[in-house]
């Protein structure tokens, strides 16, 4: 106890030096929320017009990183497609079979149709399988690095296989 008090008494002089800040903060019964702190950070850096340090352009990309952003990208893409479909349903005259017939009448070759189906199926498949991987993480499992890579490659492999199967066999 005395040790603590002596330390704090000494700190009074040191408090003006910012790099001691972390060790010599006094606890007072008040606090800012994380949100407030984050807003302060962004407001200050925007006001001072500070450039952002390079990050995506210099950091070594890894498979987990790429899978993560692809997961996010497929999510945004699928969500956008669903919203576009819903908007079209509200705005366009005529019914769905009518527009399907329009697409059918374009008479595209079978492999292009297969490719288009693969293009639709793969985002759904990847997002679903990686979503399951995320739920597995939410249970607290599979965080060790070899496990992350193993589940990652499994998701990629299964996504391709199921997309091909759904596109060309169904």
């Amino acid at each position, binding site marked *: *106890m005395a*040790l*603590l*008090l002596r*330390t*704090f*008494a000494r*700190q*009074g*002089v040191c*408090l*003006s030096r910012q790099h001691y*800040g*972390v*060790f010599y*903060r*006094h*606890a*007072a*019964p*008040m*606090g*800012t929320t994380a949100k407030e702190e*984050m*807003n302060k950070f*962004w*407001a200050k850096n*925007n006001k001072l017009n500070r450039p952002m340090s390079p990050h995506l352009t210099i950091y070594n990309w890894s498979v987990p990183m790429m899978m993560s952003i692809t997961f*996010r990208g497929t*999510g*945004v893409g*699928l*969500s956008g497609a*669903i*919203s576009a*479909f*819903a*908007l*079209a*349903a*509200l705005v366009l005259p005529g*019914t*769905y*079979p009518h527009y*399907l017939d329009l*697409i*059918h009448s374009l008479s595209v070759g079978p492999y292009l*149709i297969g490719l288009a*189906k693969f293009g639709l199926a793969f985002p759904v498949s990847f997002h*679903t399988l990686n*979503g*399951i991987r995320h*739920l597995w993480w*939410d249970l607290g499992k599979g965080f060790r690095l070899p496990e992350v890579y193993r589940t990652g490659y499994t998701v990629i492999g299964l996504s391709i296989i199921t997309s091909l199967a759904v596109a060309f066999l*169904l």
Partner: protein
Amino acid sequence: MAAIVRLSSVCRRGVKPLFYQGTLLARPLVVPHNYQEQPHQLTARIHASQALNAGSGSKAASLHWTGERVVSILLLALGPAAYFSPCPAVDYSLAAALTLHGHWGIGQILTDYVHGDAKIKIANAGLFLLSTVTFAGLCYFNYNDVGLCKAIALLWSK
């Protein structure tokens, strides 16, 4: 613990430290090695600051997190349901689950990348509008057109 704080304020010399009132906020104390001989006192300090916060927060964020997982699992179950037993109940459930899952998902993206109180509010309002229109459109499609399950089946039959 308050006694420690007040005593140390008295011990501090000069006016300068008063300018740092803003930094005198409760944070977990990072402890240098030579203080480890009194771990129980330091633990008490850390626990004390936690006790001040306990019970004053809301469970909203935690419940939101759980809700997101529940909807994800529901959506996973709706996949086979749509394939093996398509029906209006599945159509409308799919519309609801897809919209809500997408709404919360995009919400997380906005939280990650949009900063500043005003911008966040505008972005979330726009998202809410989009999700509402999406749900309305999907329900309209289910009611006035072939329905989601049939639509996918027809699309794939080509």
